């Protein structure tokens, strides 16, 4: 038996890398030359090669120790538990596919119609003016109401005109009232 005690770890690993074709060409040539003049290196290389060959030749060809049906049923059950919708065969259920696309489309359509109806039914006088905080605004807060508001945020002033006197019922005449 050859002994490899006097080889360094690096030398041994290089020998193995040579066997596995993992060395660059120049290093591979050096290792080859080494194995040709050193019997211990040649012996170790032969042992590694035999073991590798034995492994490759004994690549296992094992069969699953369960019947096809039983093996598959466990996989299928788990898939169906994890993704009940995705696991449903789409070829069988055309209605399911239609439902998947039709329902969101109907929902979007209904929302659009509701939006249009709401847009055209909004009382025009509900908000007459929208402006930023620094610009004075005049607004009639409610349709057909008898009050008009002047608001100036920079001055901190709000004036409200009523179209009737404070002690009268609503008329055509407007009287400004300062609120601040």
């Amino acid at each position, binding site marked *: *038996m*050859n*002994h*490899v*005690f006097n*080889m360094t*770890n690096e030398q*041994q*690993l290089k020998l*193995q*890398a040579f066997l*596995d074709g*993992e060395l660059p060409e120049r290093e591979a040539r050096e290792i080859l030359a080494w194995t040709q003049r050193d019997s*211990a290196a040649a*012996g*170790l290389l*032969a*042992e*590694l090669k*035999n*073991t*590798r*060959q*034995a*492994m*490759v*030749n*004994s*690549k*296992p*060809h*094992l*069969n*699953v*120790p*369960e019947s*096809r049906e039983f*093996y*598959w049923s*466990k*996989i*299928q059950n*788990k*898939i169906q538990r*994890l*993704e009940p919708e*995705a*696991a*449903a*065969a*789409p*070829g*069988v259920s055309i209605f399911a596919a239609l439902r998947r696309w039709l329902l969101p489309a109907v929902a979007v359509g209904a929302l659009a119609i509701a939006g249009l109806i709401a847009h055209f039914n909004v009382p025009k006088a509900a908000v007459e003016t929208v402006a930023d905080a620094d610009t004075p605004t005049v607004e009639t807060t409610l349709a057909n109401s008898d009050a008009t508001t002047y608001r100036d945020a920079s001055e901190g002033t709000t004036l409200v005109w009523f179209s009737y006197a404070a002690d009268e019922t609503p008329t055509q005449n407007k009287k400004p009232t300062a609120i601040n």
Partner: protein
Amino acid sequence: MSGQNYSSTDDAALVKAARRGDMGAFEELVFRHRDPIYARAFSMTRNEEDAVDLSQEAWIKGWQRLGQFQGDSSFTTWMTRIVINLCLDHLRKQKRQRADSIEAMDEESGGVERQMPVVAVNPTAGLERAELRKKIDGALDQLSAEHRTVLVLHEFEDMEYKEIAKTVGCSMGTVMSRLFYARRKMAALLAELKNEENR
């Protein structure tokens, strides 16, 4: 496509159908490739029950990730990578559960493999394939999970050092050391088995 006979359909078409949700097509893929996927799980775990569970888990993951299969490699290769990763996770969990790791002791002991005498005569020469497999199986059982994994990935999966390092999550140096130890240990175990027979 459900209820269809897929025996003459190729893998690529089955994958395409399975991606659309066709479980029948996926069942055919499982039927075709279940044995090599199970064999890989068994060679890594050395436990029949674990191998069945892990291979089934791999198929479930395969179904969930079908959209990621690009077809660059064969479907079996793609599935094998999935089962290998699951086995590695499983082995890591097992290792965490063991307080004292024999493998760690082996690696920390400072290169026991360097001290082993070279096996000059090929202990597997002239063996029938079935007999050889039996012997290799026996020797693989005696290797630690770490060493066995590297050996299996290199010899059975034809992976290069770099690829093994990436798969296992260690350095290339560790891969080389583990592979070297595993091979030397295998040689010694095979020689021992041969000697026992000759006695």
